[in-house]
């Protein structure tokens, strides 16, 4: 043991600051969050140094989990919200991927002004998300928004986009797709450029049509990039709080798990920290299960990842 420390003390000394930072910023809050899920902590019983009030919350065991998982509407209708979260996540990631791939394929050709197109298409990514969100919110405004003005101009119905209907979910999906496509496009463009050109030539010699070349060379060549960006996309979208909250606010028709956790934590009469934490832990669990299944499925296909 002493020999070990003597030999490697420098490496450990260098790693220590990072370990401390991660412990303070990630592990401690995580542990605290998990702890809160087993209590009835809220604004009324948390320790409050300003009022000189000691903490009075107490342990409640698995009651929070039972309440949430019962799907009761007073606890955010967990199952309904989960289904909406999944719809939101898969719709967004599917459209991100398909549109991103389409644009990457277009940009991977020799076209005039390719650099300009690339810059323009990456722009949504470069603008701070909240600015885009507010711009879109205004565009979706039922009365003055440009979208409804256009719809009215061509004589189409002009729905109240961000009202209490599924149009709101549709609207936030549109915005998130617009925001997320650049990332997919850049990642897939990198993937496309790493496919050796002679594979396409070999496929051409083998008599493959353009579609067959896409199926048999492009898609398999993109597989490792795709599997990574799709997993990342799913995790990010599943937890995408700002777009929904900034555009639709606390609208039950766009409510997903994270936005409900936020609502429960910061608004409402009680500021129920315990239930909000329970949601946080459940989100983490869903994503962990998903990532594990996803990796296993990839490994079955022979992907080394």
């Amino acid at each position, binding site marked *: 043991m002493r020999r070990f420390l003597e030999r490697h003390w420098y490496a450990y000394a260098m790693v220590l600051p990072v370990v401390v930072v991660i412990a303070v910023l990630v592990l401690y809050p995580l542990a605290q969050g998990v702890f809160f899920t087993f209590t009835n902590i809220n604004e009324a019983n948390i320790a409050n140094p300003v009022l000189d009030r000691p903490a009075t919350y107490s342990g409640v065991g698995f009651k929070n989990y039972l309440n949430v998982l019962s799907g009761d509407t007073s606890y955010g209708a967990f199952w309904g919200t989960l289904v909406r979260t999944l719809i939101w996540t898969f719709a967004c990631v599917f459209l991100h991927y398909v549109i991103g791939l389409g644009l990457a394929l277009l940009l991977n050709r020799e076209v005039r002004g390719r650099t300009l197109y690339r810059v323009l298409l990456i722009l949504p990514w470069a603008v701070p998300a909240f600015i885009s969100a507010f711009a879109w919110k205004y565009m979706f405004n039922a009365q003055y928004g440009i979208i409804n003005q256009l719809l009215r101009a061509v004589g189409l119905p002009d729905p109240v986009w961000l009202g209490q209907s599924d149009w709101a979910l549709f609207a936030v999906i549109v915005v998130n797709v617009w925001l997320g496509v650049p990332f997919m496009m850049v990642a897939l463009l990198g993937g496309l450029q790493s496919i050796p050109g*002679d594979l396409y*030539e070999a496929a051409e*010699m083998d008599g493959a049509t353009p579609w067959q070349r896409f199926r*048999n060379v492009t898609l*398999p060549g993109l597989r490792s990039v795709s599997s990574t960006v799709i997993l990342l996309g799913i995790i990010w979208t599943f937890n995408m709080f700002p777009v929904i909250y900034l555009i639709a606010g606390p609208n039950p028709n766009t409510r997903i798990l994270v936005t409900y956790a936020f609502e429960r934590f910061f608004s409402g009469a009680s500021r129920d920290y315990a239930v909000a934490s329970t949601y946080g832990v459940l989100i983490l669990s869903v994503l962990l299960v998903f990532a594990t299944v996803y990796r296993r499925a990839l490994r079955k296909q022979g992907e080394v990842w």
Partner: protein
Amino acid sequence: MAEVSYVKASRVFSGNPPVRAVDELSLEVSDGEFLVLVGPSGSGKSTALRMLAGLEDVDEGAIHIGGKDVTNVPPKGRDIAMVFQSYALYPHMTVAENMGFALKLRGVSKTEIKAKVEEAAKMLDLQKYLERKPKALSGGQRQRVAMGRAIVREPSVFLMDEPLSNLDAKLRVETRANIAALQQRLGTTTIYVTHDQVEAMTMGHRVAVLKDGLLQQCDTPRALYDRPANAFVAGFIGSPAMNLKTVPISAEGAKLDGIVVPLSRAALDAAGGLDEVTFGIRPEALGIVPSGDEGMDMTVELVEELGADALVHGAVKIGEGSQRFVVRVDGRTPPTLGQHVKVAVRDHSEIHLFHPESGERLEA
């Protein structure tokens, strides 16, 4: 089975000035022939092959395969198979899938594909690896899979673009022989590109030498070696390269360091009016003679022992300056470094003369 012909085919890459990568290439390849395109890098040999494959446009002239004009036919319609330098195996497919891919696209039945793939695998000794992915194969095995992919399709022409350049030296020699034997057996017209003149000489029925997009000479390996059409071919074919020196000539012959190498009447007539020629002699046509005999004085600067024989590099005075010559000598009795030796022409019929400026072969 088909014959191939290039009819004044050119490929011009746009630029300023435009680059004529292949310049009015005219070549006839007969059915079942193994033709090697050889040249230094940038000579247009790969471009010429890719034009035949349909991967590169033909800007001028035409290309015929089996008597049919295929100049504007896409690769798919040319009935050709190509082996790439990088092999270009599909990384996500097994060896069997790689080999059967073209047949699958053509809609051949599964049982037939399987039979054909197995037959080719047997020929190439790949049966054990059919279920592996290319990643799990050695370089030589990958090369064989690339060959197998071409064979399975039973095309009328094989195109090979430096298929051996990624193999180590020993495997290259072995595979060289295997490819030549395979081609003999299948009798399929083959166009083979290489920069290695040894490969060209050993494999080709005929060899076409290219330089700067221009065809220099196309003939059998023997004829290229014996009667190179110009100084470039003379220097390119043969290893080590032919000694090519510009020397003064007179009515008696070529003057090299005190000795006069007599030249034939015909050669002198061809060089009529010139006072200098490019004099070429292969290292094997020179020899070291006893010090009393007539010959050039050479100071040995380097001896490369190859086993059977040795290559002696040394400087010989010609005119004002000194020129380096290479002499092939018996491997058991090479001279030592710094030694002064006498070098003489052993065989006067192996002297080649070229025009000092154009490089064209002189004499009839």
